[in-house]
């Protein structure tokens, strides 16, 4: 919406520009005096950015805006919404214990994802960040679960984790039959099962991101420390880890947002009804179950708005307080 202001009033500089022509010198003065852009530059900007902006606004921004509107109605999805109920949907959401449970589950998943994946992935990345044989093969193999679709992962794991499935069978085969569990439906362990699947699926992503971050650290630093007699772990702790900070913070951000939006894995492994009894339901599965699957589109949109606001608040707080230093550069770069 901000960019559209460029296109409507291009006439002002027409005369100036036509005298210089569209040739060599035209764009150069424009750079020095950003206010005096030629109509041609404006046209180029509009043509080049326009399509992307229209797509983005109509399929990303507009639906979210519409959700805010629909959320005020009791609406079954047919015809225009007419049954205005004000904030009733939102009151219902926050009084529904099923939603509050789902919200709690999301909170647990956010924390456990950071705690389980973060240290393990950093350690793995530190171990793998040296020139050695087979390095790239190891990287590729660790990354494989991330590339496989959630549906395949969910289907595979749900078959393996059934009471008569491969995990229990394997435990029995190696003589640990006592550890056999009802992995999926026992509320005491279902959340941990979910965390196992999540960790398995996404830790490769964390490792690759961290390895990429490690590669950006100049070798001279570690070499100098080595010459000064620092040990491998001293170097990691004093030099590598602090310099990896920005990468870790970005990963944590992506992980938090992903955990808040978690849907596919839970919905596939636990289905829409079992998830709440097993204690793995999330805001997103709640939204789909109570919105689309029961035909209450007004309510479903209200849940979407709540999810959106929660994610937005957390994202803004995180960017404000945790990533402040990292994003400053990125954002100011865009302006000048």
């Amino acid at each position, binding site marked *: 919406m901000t960019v559209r202001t460029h296109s409507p009033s291009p006439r002002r500089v027409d005369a100036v520009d036509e005298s210089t022509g569209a040739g060599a010198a035209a764009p150069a003065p424009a750079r020095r005096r950003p206010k005096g852009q030629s109509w041609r530059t404006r046209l180029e900007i509009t043509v080049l950015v326009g399509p992307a902006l229209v797509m983005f606004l109509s399929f990303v921004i507009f639906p979210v805006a519409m959700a805010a509107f629909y959320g005020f109605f009791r609406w079954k999805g047919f015809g225009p919404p007419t049954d205005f109920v004000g904030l009733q949907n939102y009151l219902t959401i926050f009084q529904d214990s099923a939603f509050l449970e789902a919200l709690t589950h999301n909170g647990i998943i956010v924390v456990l994802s950071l705690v389980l994946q973060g240290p393990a992935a950093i350690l793995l990345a530190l171990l793998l960040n040296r020139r050695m044989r087979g390095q790239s093969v190891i990287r*590729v193999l660790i990354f494989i679960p991330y590339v496989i679709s959630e549906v395949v992962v969910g289907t595979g794991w749900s078959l393996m984790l059934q009471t008569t499935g491969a995990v229990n069978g394997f435990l029995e085969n190696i003589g640990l039959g006592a550890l056999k569990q009802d992995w999926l439906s026992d509320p005491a362990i279902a959340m941990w099962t979910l965390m196992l699947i999540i960790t398995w699926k996404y830790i490769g992503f964390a490792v690759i991101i961290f390895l990429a971050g490690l590669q950006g650290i100049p070798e001279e630093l570690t070499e100098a420390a080595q010459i000064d007699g620092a040990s491998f772990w001293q170097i990691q702790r004093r030099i590598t880890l602090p310099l990896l900070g920005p990468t870790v913070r970005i990963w944590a951000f992506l992980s938090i947002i992903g955990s808040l939006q978690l849907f596919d894995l839970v919905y596939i492994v636990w289905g829409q009804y079992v998830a709440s009894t097993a204690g793995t339901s999330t805001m997103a599965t709640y939204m789909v179950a109570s919105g689309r699957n029961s035909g209450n589109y007004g309510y479903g949109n209200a849940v979407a708005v709540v999810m959106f606001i929660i994610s937005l608040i957390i994202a803004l707080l995180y960017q404000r307080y945790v990533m402040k230093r990292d994003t400053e550069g990125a954002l100011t770069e865009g302006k000048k």
Partner: protein
Amino acid sequence: MATATIRPRLAPRRAEQKLTWGNPVVYFVALVVIALMLAPVVYIILGGFRTNAQITTDPAGFPAPWNIGNYFTVLFGSVFWQQVLNSTIAAVATTLGAVVLGVMASYVIARYPFRGRGILYSLFAAGLMFPITVAITPLYIVIKNLGLMNSLVGVILPQIAFALPVTIIILVPFLRAIPKELEEAAFIDGCSRIGFFWRMVVPLATPGVITTGILAFIGSWNGYILPLFILNDASTFTLPLGVQAFASQYAVDTAKVLAFTSLSMIPALVFFSLFERRIVGGLTGAVKG
């Protein structure tokens, strides 16, 4: 076991000299991790070669004897191929759309000085914070009102829109890195900005473009929630929906489900092994950008 089979296939491709063997502890840890990562994948693939009787007697055993029937049933049926076709159409169209629109927009954000370009960049970057899940309910209504239900177009358009933030975030630093001198030299030689775009920027940005294209492709290929909402007609199903439908239709026939599941992950795995460096490189760019 899986590492042993895959390593020789990949190793010859790399011609790095002077690489030493690292610390054995590192290899041990790596092997354990890799075994944990691959075991479920291997289980799915091997499970497809077993019979239901074998799976019932010993859920965690090896195929004995090997039975290729499940794979043949899936491969010679039309359902699987229809879904491969649908997934391919959706993924190719999404990739093309995201890349073409993304390059154009990134070029402007990276190299045109104008007021509001910071806001424009932040607007697209903000899209990164909100995966498709949060918008899916209203998005479904938008698509329904556009009359695009049960059509791949209804999946492709939102996928392009949601792929744009990543594409732009990766490409903007890439395009900004093209030296100013190059641009000035081109202008002195009488090249317009658009000419510069076609003759210099597009060729120079190819590596970044490939990376973003791959990310868009895999995102579309694996996408689940959007097709789940938009595609209700079985003939329009993409592979993820197909896997789920197949798994519930043949719930008692575990071996066939495993065969279907492992066949459906092959394309993504092949694609990934072909472009592994680009993907990893792209993520590096995304983190630094």
